[in-house]
């Protein structure tokens, strides 16, 4: 059975998530989506899902608050798998769960959920007019943008060019690598939202080749940073695995996302990894093309990242 793609839809209160959700559910796209709304007592949308949810956020045994898993989510994904018939995708709207991390983590932490689903993308809706103000008040508004693979910059009709530029600049500072799609009333083509395959990192990085300049660079706003590293040299996988395991164990609380593609000597395929906080997942991606430059690219997004230390450690993983 092919894994079901899952899109996590997030955004601050009033940004326009529900507008987008309604479009997805009502437009004639010929697909069947199951929708999980995060904050509800009882919901039945599209005859796909009827369930009751209690907010279940709990700590891992190691006591790390960032490693919370949502029991309801696991239960619901399990429930969807049981249903007869074909399901094209699952959409999770994280209303009321301002921090998307626990939802994303579920797709790493629970083996069964991980086997059955493929996290397609985190899509964040941003209110162009109020974003600047929300940034000042809410850590969650910032984190939603930091975690995003795609950002719908909504309500652009309510701001002038200067306001739009300001919002764009703020988004770019927090998250330089997500695709930003301006919209009014979330009127974006749905294929920009669903089936993005953003976790196909090659595609993502190819969209923004200028993101990864030679060497490393850094964007920062408050303490949120993005550290990118690139090398033409192949990576010693054993060294890299040992390093990233230790690094995330020690600093994972500060790492919102990490992603990368690695050139492993003798491997036909690129090795793709992605992580959230302390969790990291690795697997082989597309094969390298004949004439392609085999570059290893790594991105860390987090708080108080030691750029130099990351750079030195990454270099230490390269094949000499």
């Amino acid at each position, binding site marked *: *059975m092919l894994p079901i793609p899952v899109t996590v839809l997030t955004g601050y209160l009033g940004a326009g998530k529900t507008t987008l959700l309604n479009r997805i559910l009502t437009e004639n796209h010929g697909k069947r989506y199951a929708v999980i709304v995060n904050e509800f*007592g*009882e919901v039945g949308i599209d005859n796909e899902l*009827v*369930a*009751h949810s*209690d907010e*279940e956020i*709990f*700590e*891992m*045994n190691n*006591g790390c608050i960032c490693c919370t*898993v949502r*029991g*309801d989510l*696991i*239960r619901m994904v399990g*429930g969807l*798998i*049981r*249903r*007869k018939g074909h399901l094209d995708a699952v959409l999770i709207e994280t209303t009321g769960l301002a921090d998307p991390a626990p939802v994303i983590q579920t797709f790493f932490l*629970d*083996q*069964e959920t991980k*086997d059955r689903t493929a996290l397609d993308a985190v899509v964040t809706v941003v209110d162009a007019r109020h974003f600047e103000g929300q940034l000042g008040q809410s850590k969650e508004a910032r984190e939603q943008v930091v975690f995003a693979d795609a950002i719908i910059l909504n309500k652009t009709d309510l701001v002038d060019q200067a306001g739009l530029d300001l919002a764009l600049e703020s988004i770019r500072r927090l998250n330089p690598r997500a695709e930003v799609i301006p919209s009014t009333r979330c009127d974006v083509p749905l294929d920009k939202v669903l089936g993005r395959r953003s976790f196909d990192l090659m595609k993502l990085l190819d969209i923004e080749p200028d993101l990864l300049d030679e060497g490393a660079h850094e964007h920062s706003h408050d303490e949120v940073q993005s550290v990118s590293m690139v090398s033409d040299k192949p990576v010693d996988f054993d060294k890299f695995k040992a390093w990233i395991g230790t690094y995330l164990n020690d600093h994972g609380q500060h790492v919102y996302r990490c992603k990368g593609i690695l050139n492993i000597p003798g491997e036909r395929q690129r090795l793709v990894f992605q992580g959230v906080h302390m969790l990291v997942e690795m697997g082989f991606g597309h094969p390298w093309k004949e004439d392609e430059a085999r570059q290893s690219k790594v991105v860390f997004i987090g708080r108080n990242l030691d750029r130099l230390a990351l750079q030195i450690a990454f270099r230490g993983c390269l094949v000499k």
Partner: protein
Amino acid sequence: MGAPTLLSPGLWQWNLGAYIDQATFSSDGSRVAFALGDGRIATIGVPCDDPQFSAVHQGSCLSLAPHPAGGFISGGDDGLLAYTSPDGTVDEIIRSKGHWLEHMARSKNGDTVAVAAGREVIILDLAAGSLATYGPHPASVSGIAVSPAGGVLAATHVGGVSLYDLDEPGEPITLDLRGLNVAPAFSPDGNYLACGHQENAVHIIDLASRKVFGLSGLPAKPGKLDWSHDGSLLLHSGTKAVICWPVPACFRENPQPVAFAVQEEARMCSLSANPLIPFAAGGFTDGTVLLAELKRFAAFPLDIVPASPVSALAWSAQGLHLACGFEDGRAILLDMGEMLSGN
């Protein structure tokens, strides 16, 4: 859908047309029942009749138990707790709107049946014809077990396990265990309780001394637990082999589990121990069903073509028949006697 195929001596297969979520036998062992993902219950006369279907639930049928007087009790994600009689008539017991009735447990004689509904547990005393509600618990009930003799209810949830004396209702005893606890299982003598954890760990609790044996770092969530017939071994799913923890030896220093029948490519996702002999069945994600001998610690696979994950396993109370359900809707029944005489 219907007619059985004989795969090998004592091994029959049906296609029931929907995800099989649960399997159980009628109390007299004459019929086997399967709970299906499309809300139906399929019952089959043992060993090889054509299946009879009853449309019971809207959505999925999630839990199933035999009624001591015949027929089956089932719960679904429509919140319906229903009784399906041997002739296929469906009667509503209760309706718990908005709750998935996916956890069900019963005492050994079947007179006490428990079902979880959100934060509460409903207890049916089928002998007395009465119904009682326990809870609310601090979070959704994620697993329940009734002690074999029927006197104690264990309900797992986030942060611990609540234990109730069913004979003398009162406040529960709460055992604190961090994380999300699942799949509680009483040892056959009722002296130990084991449970799994969403966080890939297992705990075994000595109920008299409250000593707790904990094991973490498993490859996946141990979502199914069971005890060998004599209670000397605890088995659990979530591993790439058959793993048995000796009890009470596990409470001493450096306990060593017995591990055998390593499966390189698959993980155990379904489990059922034979109630009468040292034998257990383990179902794996690649569709393999292993019969494990718990005396010699050796296992052999059932002679079936692995196709989709094993989603349900159950032994009859007499220990002679094993029912297997698969995600792709195949159901398999093994008659141990037939199989052994056929070889």
